[in-house]
């Protein structure tokens, strides 16, 4: 952790807290979404994959105190952080349509890895609404694997696309002077706009 950017160390706790609060606000507003990985993806996009993964890992460990089954899904949040860092380096978060498409990538991690964990640890029947759907699909005639994968991929797609849209607008609203201090900020700064502004001033 020695080589980590100084601001990153202080952004990790914020990311963890936002993961929590995002989920709570979604509950308060009675939204049918989790919205509990906004912090992970934002920190991943701003500071790189490793800090994003740290945010995800600590978030799941702390939630596990009140809902221990989340501990099993720690790999998901780590994956989201790493993927966010990678995509950010590629400049995906500069355009809204690219960000929305990236939602499928996140949903694939969420649905694919998530259903794998559910199958390995909970035999495909997790404690939650997705487990309910899986059970229904099983009675219709799907196998456990297919049922779990389908229900979790669908639930994740429904959750990750709004999450990424929120992340996109948050990244867009961060002032340039803050971005300049962050490891991946240089990717997100819109250089055209910047040089345009200085030209206008001159």
């Amino acid at each position, binding site marked *: *952790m020695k080589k980590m950017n100084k601001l990153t160390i202080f952004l990790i706790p914020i990311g963890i807290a936002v993961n929590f609060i995002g989920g709570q606000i979604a509950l308060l507003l009675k939204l049918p979404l989790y919205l509990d990985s906004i912090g992970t993806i934002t920190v991943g996009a701003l500071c790189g994959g490793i800090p994003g993964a740290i945010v995800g890992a600590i978030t799941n460990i*702390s939630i*596990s105190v009140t*809902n*221990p089954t989340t501990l099993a899904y720690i790999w998901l949040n780590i994956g989201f952080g790493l993927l966010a860092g990678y995509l950010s380096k590629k400049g995906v978060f500069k355009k809204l349509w690219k960000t929305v498409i990236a939602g499928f990538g996140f949903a694939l991690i969420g649905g694919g890895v998530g259903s794998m964990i559910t199958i390995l640890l909970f*035999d495909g*029947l997790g404690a939650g609404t997705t487990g309910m759907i899986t*059970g229904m699909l099983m009675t219709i005639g799907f196998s456990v694997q297919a049922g779990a994968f389908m229900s979790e991929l669908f639930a994740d797609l429904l959750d990750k696309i709004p999450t990424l849209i929120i992340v996109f607008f948050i990244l867009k609203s961060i002032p340039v002077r803050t971005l300049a201090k962050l490891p991946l900020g240089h990717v997100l700064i819109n250089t055209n706009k910047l040089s345009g502004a200085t030209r206008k001033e001159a």
Partner: protein
Amino acid sequence: MDYQFVDSFRKPQVQHNWFLDLNPLSKLNIIIILAIIPILSHSWQVSVAVITFYFVLAVASNRLKQFSKVYVRLALLIGSLLFIMRAMFIPGEDTLMKIGFITITQEGVDHGARFASLVVAICGALVFYSVATQARDLMLALEKKGVPHTATYVILSSLQSIIDLGRMSKIIMESQKARGIETEGKAMNRIKAFFPILGPLFLGAISNSEEKAIAMDARAFYAPEKNTHLRELRPVPMSEKLILVIVNLAFIAFIVWRVIG
């Protein structure tokens, strides 16, 4: 300031309870063993025994109220969900009941009972540890073992940030409501209300963290020297070390017995 409060920092702050005053890492060791036993034994009787043992420990360490407040609700919720799901959907030969398209079988019920009690027992380990240990004590113990202070800072700071930002989010929500943003009613309205609550919260926190970084830098947060602590941990007494050795040896013997038997 209260003289007694100041004076309490002169020696290790203990809670005068044999279990709570154990070193956080010793507690962790015992709890991990308690969590692994039901995984290895594969029977709901063992899981129930371990769950009962958590309650006994909670009584012994004077934490029954805090522990049961969180745990009973959680155990009932997760346990019943996992059990019902398995009882309903796992196919088997021995049919007990038929409700519509759902068939409840003996195999499903057995498997459900075993699995639900196992998960609830593991949950107990986590909940009990969080009730019996203060995060700052655990971090101090980890730091003494060589974990960098930036890492422990991140964890303690995130616990604090959750509380701070939670309070902040309520304030922002109230003020946005006062400005006429609808937080109830149609689904679209509620989705639209999410942005003006989370946006200011997150952006404010980011700009705050910038100031915090400068302030902490001025207080030599990044200094390579070993840092000092306001609080001290109780030195581990001989009896505690002895108990740990016995518990760990018993655990290893248990594993060997399971593998051979």
